[in-house]
């Protein structure tokens, strides 16, 4: 069907030769695993809660996974200069959507995170903002060389601040933390002066506490979450307690597919507690396997970072892989109650169109930037 020999200079063939196939297949594996889990984790809630046909969520997930895979390949096939050209407009558009959230957003279960435009299905703009933000920061720090170096960092910081302000307002603590952590990781890796970084960290932490202190209504819930985390008896630990129980119940090898109870007990188990669901049904060893897949991907990407010479690619890859790792970290942490409760999806595996598409963008860009011919379009043509 396809001819991948070296003589073939078609786009697809070139892409196939140059793409890091190990990373590609790891991503595809993760997507398929997610599809498989949603089969078991969503079928029962649908028939009970929504009175729709049993595979409603599964079919939706399936469609999204297919779309995401196409998107992933589409992005990874693009030329890098195109991506950089399109970056600024896309980033601005996604931030605009984020701005729209408090105005025309839809509130679901206490948080306004979604917008519902008539032409598009309901989506969560932050999932699109995240990868674009990472690339944007890398671009500003590395590529805008005319500018004063501190101004470059300042610009990236302001864009972070803007996004985080919008997120806290939703409220969405987990994503804010994720973005801040990824940004810090990037700034750290880019060789920023450590002393200034520490000073800035102290200053922003104090601002954070002042905000909590002076605006308890708006920010008090953060304090409350942390309080419940440290003192399990104080507050409402319904979800995290159930998730812990589920992991214990699952043991090393799990209860068997479809045998879990967590998904019926905890709302949004198929998104925010997917690791607990997997652990209950397929066992802790399976979760370990998934973690290893993530680590493998980051290992491959880091390999590329160490051999790559283009600073922009390096920083972008570091940022994106930090994004993936930290998100996985938060998700597992919340599931095992090592971190305070927050709604955070597991990339590639959790149910949800926005999350899947966002993951596909991250994966697509990673694949694109790890191609063997990765620096070609950046330096010359």
């Amino acid at each position, binding site marked *: 069907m396809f001819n991948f020999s070296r003589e073939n200079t078609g786009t697809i063939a070139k892409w196939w030769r140059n793409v890091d196939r190990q990373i590609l297949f790891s991503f595809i594996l993760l997507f398929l695993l997610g599809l498989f889990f949603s089969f078991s984790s969503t079928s029962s809630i649908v028939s009970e809660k929504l009175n729709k046909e049993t595979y409603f969520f599964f079919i939706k997930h399936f469609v999204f996974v297919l779309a995401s895979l196409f998107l992933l390949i589409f992005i990874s096939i693009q030329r890098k200069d195109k991506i*950089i050209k399109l970056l600024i407009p896309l980033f601005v558009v996604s931030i605009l959507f984020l701005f729209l959230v408090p105005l025309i957003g839809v*509130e679901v*279960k*206490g948080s306004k995170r979604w917008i519902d435009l008539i032409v598009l299905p309901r989506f969560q703009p932050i999932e699109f903002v995240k990868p674009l933000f990472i690339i944007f920061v890398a671009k500003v720090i590395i*590529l805008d*060389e*005319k*500018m*004063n*170096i*501190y101004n470059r960092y300042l610009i990236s910081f302001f864009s972070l601040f803007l996004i985080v302000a919008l997120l806290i307002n939703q409220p969405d603590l987990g994503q804010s933390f994720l973005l801040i952590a990824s940004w810090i990781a990037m700034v*750290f*890796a*880019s*060789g920023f002066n450590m002393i200034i970084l520490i000073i800035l960290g102290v200053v922003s932490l104090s601002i954070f506490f002042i905000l909590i202190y002076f605006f308890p209504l708006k920010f008090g819930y953060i304090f409350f979450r942390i309080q419940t985390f440290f003192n*399990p*008896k104080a507050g409402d630990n319904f979800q995290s*307690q159930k998730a812990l*129980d589920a*992991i*214990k*119940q*699952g*043991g*090393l090898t799990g209860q068997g597919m479809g045998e879990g*109870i967590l998904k019926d*007990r905890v*709302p949004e188990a198929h998104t925010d507690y997917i*690791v607990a669901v997997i*652990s209950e049904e397929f066992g*802790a*060893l399976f*979760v*370990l396997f998934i*973690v290893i897949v*993530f*680590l493998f991907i*980051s290992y491959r990407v*880091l390999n590329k*970072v*160490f051999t790559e*010479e283009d*600073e922009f690619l*390096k*920083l972008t890859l*570091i940022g994106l*892989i*930090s994004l993936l*790792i*930290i998100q*996985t*970290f938060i998700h*597992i942490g919340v599931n*095992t109650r*090592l971190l305070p409760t927050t709604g955070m999806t597991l990339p590639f595996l959790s149910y949800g169109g926005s999350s899947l598409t966002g993951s596909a963008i991250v994966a697509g860009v990673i694949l694109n930037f790890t191609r063997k011919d990765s620096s070609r*379009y*950046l*330096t*010359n*043509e």
Partner: protein
Amino acid sequence: MKKKQKKFIKKKSFFFKDYPDPEINFDNIQHKSVKVSLNRTTFLFFIFFSLIFIFSIKIIYLSFFTEKNVFSKKSNYDFVKKRADIIDRNGIILARSIDVYSAGVRSKLVQDKKKLLINLKLIFPELDANKIREKLNSNNFFYIKKRLTEDEKTKLWLIGNKAIVFEKKQFRIYPQQNLLSHILGQIDDNNNGISGLEKFFDSDLKNKKMIESPLQLSLDSNLQFLIREELINAKKDFNQIGSAAFLMDINSGQVLSSISLPDYDLNKRILIDKDIYTNKITKGVYELGSVFKTFTLAAGLENKKIKSSTIFKNLESKIYCAGRKISEHDDLPKDLSAEQILIRSSNIGAVRIAQKVGIQKYKDFLNSLELFQKINFDLEEIGTPLPFRWGKCKLATASFGHGITTTPLQLAKAYAILSNGGYRIEPTILKGNSLELKKQIISSETSRTINSALRKVVANKEGTANFANIKGYEVGGKTGTALKSVNGIYTDKKLNTFISVFPTSKPKYILLVMLDEPKPAPQYVYEFPNGYKHKGEMRNTSGWNAVVVAGKIIEKIGPILAINSLQASK
């Protein structure tokens, strides 16, 4: 040069990529290009990997605690009992405190009222949508439902609306519902006992040190259930307005069952204020009638005034005392032995025996059985027998149980003392709280004679309690039919008692059955022990109803008691 290299893409010029040289840009440090530090990257990812590694360890660690059925087991890590459980003698839970949730709605937080209404209606189809809509518009806060079940709570939770709030409260539940309503009693909203055991043992039940060890009663809820069933069935036949039964171990004084009907469901927490709900066994103070004749006979025997074979000749059919007539309920022979006076329940005969004993000795005897003072018992509701003055006429009427009051509990206690060989006992409702048989207050000889007389009441053809002669249990007992007095005037309404002891050769249990205002049962087919069937009976004295019920009860519980005592003796 480096700068030019990087200033990039759009420039279509062709050049070879050089090795990057960081040292080049000295002149303007502010405009230096950023270089990704590989050391820092390594450090960063080392931290990331370690964190993920720690989390994975946590998952593995957790999964080693494989507990089966974590979900069905109540995870009570934040549940602190405020009140100890109450269990029966077999460990069956009678009362337990649990957390219950009430769901309320904060109307101001509701964004989509219609959606909330639909959701609520889906979970609670019985709710009135219009009322809730009204409340949503007018009240700031209102309850949707109090005391949610676990299932309902989860469903409400899954709506995920922050306007729905849950309130946790510890609540007392009584899984046996009506079965022990009079014994257990109730608590108020602040965890204070207000009646029954809950009040009597309030401080013990709340004692933090003992809160994990349940209060174990001597009651057997299986027996309680069977006896209660029989009493309820009896209502169909005899249409009594109330009934009571009491089963006690004759030697230890441990109460096995105590029932008073009508009863009520403790879980419904309704206000109980009608007289009809009185605990008839402990609180009710009644004239109990002929059951007192046993005491009269025992007083005669104990004081050596008579023997069971002593013949009383020329008994009148009626006598007068202070202008009041005392008569027999039936045509009886003129000459009766002391024993036969009991068997055939002769009023005049009883009077003669009592007169022979004399006021002082008769009084002392009854007092030694502690019939007229308030009894010490483990319940809050204890009746005090009405005070009276002894006199000639009092002696006469007291001899057959009229004009003299006590509680059924005290009656049972006195019978137990008479039948167990004369040893003093103290009824108790707690397991493992029984007195050792110590003080003998009545001679074994009297006890033996009384037991054989009681047996004859049931077994002899002319006895009044033939219907309780259940084969194999050697039932003995005495009937009592008293006329109820309302405001000091006797009515023709009856209070029928049958107190039985079995097995009479070595008594173990005492069973008291009391029917309040039983009606004649012409529709009921009486079956005599000899197989003769009788229908259309218009009499409603104790022998025609209370005895029948007692017989049925013994027939049912007898095998259980027999097995239990076999196990106990092993």
